[in-house]
């Protein structure tokens, strides 16, 4: 589903990803962990196609197609979804209008049946309830004046409605209290299916208590330095990242 080969990427000219390899198959849940500045969010933004995030080497294939030359909307239409670390506020555009535009564009591109406004409203209301979001939020400006937790739940609500093939969650757990974390986890878990891949980018092991991953990867200085099963997250929780990244830095010092 997602195949990343020796990916190099730069943000505003500065190299951040330095030869990253990762394969995500349908039905798998991957967690990408790592210290601040290791390139986790860069990876998410590069895959989604944000401006100024430039692929400088290697490739990332989604459903066999290179993401490098695709506009962000084409990626989304193919079924890639990024849950933002910092969801954007859009005053004057209601959440409902936003969802309508998003679902019209993606469902049409994916050859799915288009929803009329009544269907869309009903589904949006139902989905709001799943993530404990008051349906009144549908009438408000996108994320306008939402609390941190409400913004994250709004991301999950969008994700559930859009039914992506591959969901990338960029630090969706940051800033959430324990109740909101469980709500978000419940939403993500309900999306798990044999046809769908999920990539969780996170700092902390906490989220992984609720969304149990099949694979855990540690990202450091733009590369994946260790991969393992869910138990790797517990090791990281106990020992920190030092034992992984430290080793690597030592090696660097020796070669220098």
């Amino acid at each position, binding site marked *: 589903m997602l195949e990343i080969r020796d990916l190099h990427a730069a943000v505003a000219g500065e190299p951040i990803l330095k030869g990253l390899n990762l394969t995500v198959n349908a039905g798998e849940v991957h967690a990408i962990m790592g210290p601040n500045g290791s390139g986790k969010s860069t990876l998410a933004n590069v895959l989604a196609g944000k401006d100024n995030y430039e692929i400088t080497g290697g490739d990332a294939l989604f459903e066999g197609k290179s993401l490098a030359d695709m506009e962000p909307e084409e990626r989304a239409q193919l079924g890639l979804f990024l849950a933002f670390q910092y969801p954007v506020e859009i005053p004057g555009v209601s959440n409902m*209008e936003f969802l309508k535009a998003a679902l019209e564009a993606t469902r049409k591109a994916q050859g799915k049946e288009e929803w009329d406004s009544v269907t869309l409203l009903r589904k949006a209301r139902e989905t709001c309830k799943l993530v404990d979001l008051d349906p009144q939020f549908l009438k408000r400006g996108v994320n306008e004046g939402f609390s941190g937790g409400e913004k994250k739940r709004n991301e999950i609500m969008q994700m559930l409605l859009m039914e992506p093939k591959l969901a990338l969650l960029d630090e969706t757990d940051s800033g959430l209290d324990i109740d909101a974390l469980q709500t978000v986890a419940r939403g993500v878990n309900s999306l798990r299916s044999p046809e769908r891949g999920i990539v969780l980018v996170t700092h902390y092991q906490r989220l992984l208590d609720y969304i149990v991953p099949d694979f855990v990867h540690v990202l450091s200085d733009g590369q994946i330095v260790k991969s393992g099963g869910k138990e790797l997250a517990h090791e990281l929780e106990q020992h920190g990242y030092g034992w992984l990244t430290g080793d690597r830095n030592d090696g660097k010092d020796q070669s220098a």
Partner: protein
Amino acid sequence: MSALLSPEDLKRQALANAQDATESKAESPALAALRDNSLAALKAAVFPGRKTEQWKYTSLQPLADGHLNRRAAAAATPADLPKLGDYRLVLVNGRLDESTSALPDGVTLKREASRLEGLTTPFALYNGAALDDAITLEVAANTDVAGPVQVIHYADGDQPAHCNTRLEVVLDTGSRMTLIEQYLGRGPVLTNAVTAIETRDNAHLSHYRLQSEARDSLHIGTLLFRQTGVSRVDSYQLMAGSRLRRNDVRAFIDKSGAELNMNGIFVARDRTHIDNQLCVEHRVPDCTSNQVYRGLAGEKGKAILNGRIHIHPGASGTLAELSNKNLLLNPGAEIYTKPELEIYNDDVKCAHGATVGQLDAGQQFYLQARGVPLAEAKRLLSLGFVNELVMGLPDQTVADWAQPWLAGELGQSRGADEEAA
């Protein structure tokens, strides 16, 4: 190409028409007096040219097509005009369609016009000097008018021509009314419009001014508020660009304690043009004015706002604010905004802010990341920019009408459609 049009040419055309009009018989003595007085003032007036400061960004060259040489002929009222109020008056090319003149209790209609003070621009004077017809609405004291009154000014013609259209309104002591002025039309007609509104003590006016005539039309309009009493005026002005649109809005706040709120949205897409010249005169102490305008220009559209706040020496305790945020959709579009504060009193509180910005890249990416194509993302964000004000309109019927209209204005460029056709 049409020949270059000078201010002297314009004046010659205006005077010739006005003299014809004053020689024809006047239906009402008040209208006859207004014509004579306006004509006298028009003779002394100077029409704007390229060097006139207040016309710096707006050329009257489109009038070289001969708009002022011809008056738009009488025409029938179109069947499908929007109905936004419980009561509706329609003027076609400046003449009242009498079949539309039902009015609520407490509102009297007169076929006349009489106001001159404060109406000093050459086009407003020409309007007064050449009127065929006009309406004055008088709202009786202590009347709470039952429903919104809609006045449609419709311009209709197949060739360049002009019409003079005029509405005067007086809200007497303790009265309340919602007035919806709507300008619509078909064809390359110049609407030369004057609206003059007086509010007396304890009167409250909610005023809408919706302008969406045909894109090849021209509009030169004056809107005058005179708050002679402790009154409140809430005005909402929504405009789409046309070949030439110019609005001179002037407010005299003349009684202590009066409050004026003006809000506006102007959208200039393709090659359309909108010029707003606002002037608020604070002449007495302890009055409040608050102005919030949002402008948007795209393709080769051009929008101008000049917001003058004039605080006279006696006007201590004035609170005056003006905000104008603008959005430029692409490099070919132009926006000129200038707050102009003239303050002759130290005991006042004035604030002004004017910005010109572009669509936010982060918001565009957020929409794109949800599968929305860039062009549609831009359209949604532009609409969102003006929607914040539209959602604040107190009259739901107007808001419901304005939303799809503005969505259309912000949709695919009509110029592009025409080029494709």
